[in-house]
């Protein structure tokens, strides 16, 4: 079973979560818990950096949907950066690129929050 590593980084009021590995049915819970934790702490400006994410399954995609309503209701957002071509394809196919803003690098995403 492949693992998921979540490395958080804070830039002023923006929280960046670096995902590494596999986001699937076995690991999505960990990611969901992390996001919920941030929401509870009122850290609602979130960037998910995916340059080291190898795989995302439908369960992994579901996590974004399960928290985004709450985050946007509070005035925050989740923005995605550095999606590799495989992951981007999955996001695009499902229409996630219509629901979430994606950026090539973290700086652009951070600037977008301002």
């Amino acid at each position: 079973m492949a693992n998921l590593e979540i490395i958080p980084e804070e830039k002023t009021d923006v929280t960046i979560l670096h995902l590494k590995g596999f986001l699937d049915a076995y690991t999505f819970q960990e990611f969901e818990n992390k996001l919920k934790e941030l929401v509870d702490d009122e850290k609602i400006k979130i960037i998910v950096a995916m340059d080291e994410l190898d795989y995302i399954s439908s369960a992994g995609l579901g996590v974004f949907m399960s928290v985004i309503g709450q985050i946007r209701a509070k005035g925050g957002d989740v923005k995605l950066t550095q999606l590799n071509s495989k992951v981007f394809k999955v996001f695009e196919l499902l229409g996630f690129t219509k629901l979430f803003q994606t950026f090539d690098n973290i700086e652009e995403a951070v600037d977008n929050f301002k």
Partner: protein
Amino acid sequence: MFADWNLKWKLFSIISVTLLLAVLFFSFLINTYEKQLLLKIHHEKGRGLSQIILQNLKVMMISGNKLQILDFLNSKVSDEVQDISLIKLDEEKVLYSTARDIEGTDISASDVEFLSDIKAEFIKSPSHNGGAIKAYYVYVGNTFFRDSGTFVLRIDYSQQVIYDFIRKQTNQIMFVSIVILLLGFAISFITGSLLTRPVNSLMEGIIELGKGNLDFKINLSTKDEFGRLAGAFNRMSENLQFAQKQIIVKELMERDFKMAQEIQNALFIKEVPASEILDITPFYEAARMIGGDYYDIMTRDDKKTVLVADVSGKGIPGSLIMVMLRSLIRAQYYGEDNLRELIMKVNHLLMQDIQPGKFVTLLIADFHEKTETVSIINAGHIPLYKYIAKEDRVEELVPSGLGLGLNDGVIFDQNLDLGEDKMAPGDIYLFCTDGATEAMNPNKDQFGEERLANALKQYKDQGSKEIVENIRKDIKSFLAGEEFNDDFTLVVVKRNNKEV
């Protein structure tokens, strides 16, 4: 044989035999010691008696009154003291004796032997004045008698008295031994019972447990090892009972699962609707007992509608959403001829009931048999693969669209495109779920879209049934023994060569 005895008898026999041996050994020791003790007692007795006699003889010997001497000696004779004799050592003659028949006679051979030792001792120390006493003999002395010489007093103790004494002693020892033995038997018997009673209780418990009576409790309140063992046994019974309950719960769950599976299986179409120009074969395999994939083939007027859908999440939650989706689509299908409108309605209705984070990807296509056109909606699903017979190549048809359940509003509707295609004889359409394209072999390689497209091309001349069967086999052999980790659905629609 010993091995067949029960614990109680083993203990009893071991303790009894040990005790018996101990008593025998003890008796032997007492017996040996007793002989020495008797010798010593009579030695002392002889010394005491001889000294008393000596005091009186001193006077009597001077007067030389034989009758007086004999009377005196006789007065000292008792049950214990049989005879008293005065022996003149030099002449080896019995001078006076209470046993009249030996008076004046020579002393016996045994006396000679014994007295020679006395003599030797006496000669070695002529000034010796005390009484040298050996067994029943007493040396009297030689200086104060008128009849000068060396005299020895011989006291014969009664053997009968000695034997009686020994017998009495032996009887006492026997009595004590028997008491000890009986006590030993009793103790070993009680010990055996004390040990075997808890063992029997435990055995009874184990037999009851073996019969399946998990409620049985061993009632042993002792704090010793047996008590602790009984406690452990009772806890084990409780744990087994708990485990059994869990098994029952699990079996009930499995039964429910099986029933859910049966219900789900009943929701899949039994028979593919007949068509003049379309040859359709579906295939579905769930990774678990119940899956989250769904396919359907419906017919209305002159169109056949084929769909495959993949619910995020498998098992019961996935299957419940699948059932929701099926009901919505089937309910709306006959009232809404426009495919795009149909899917927008279904999404809108699904959004009201689906949990946030759950969604469905759907690929649906209307095959119009009269116009030979195909309308396609792809709601976040993997593409529809089409083998174009005229060009002998595979094309991906993927009009844009969001997954169902992701957005209830403008974004979903705006992004939902209706794809249009024209079919020709020999064309093949392949619907599948990502369980097929993402089937992973032990090297973590995915089967992938390219292999799927190539397979479609390879089997282009076969009927839909054979194509499905061959692709399924290809994926199975690609997996090289690895299990499917996702539900896996394939539907092949082939436009046959009939002219309309």
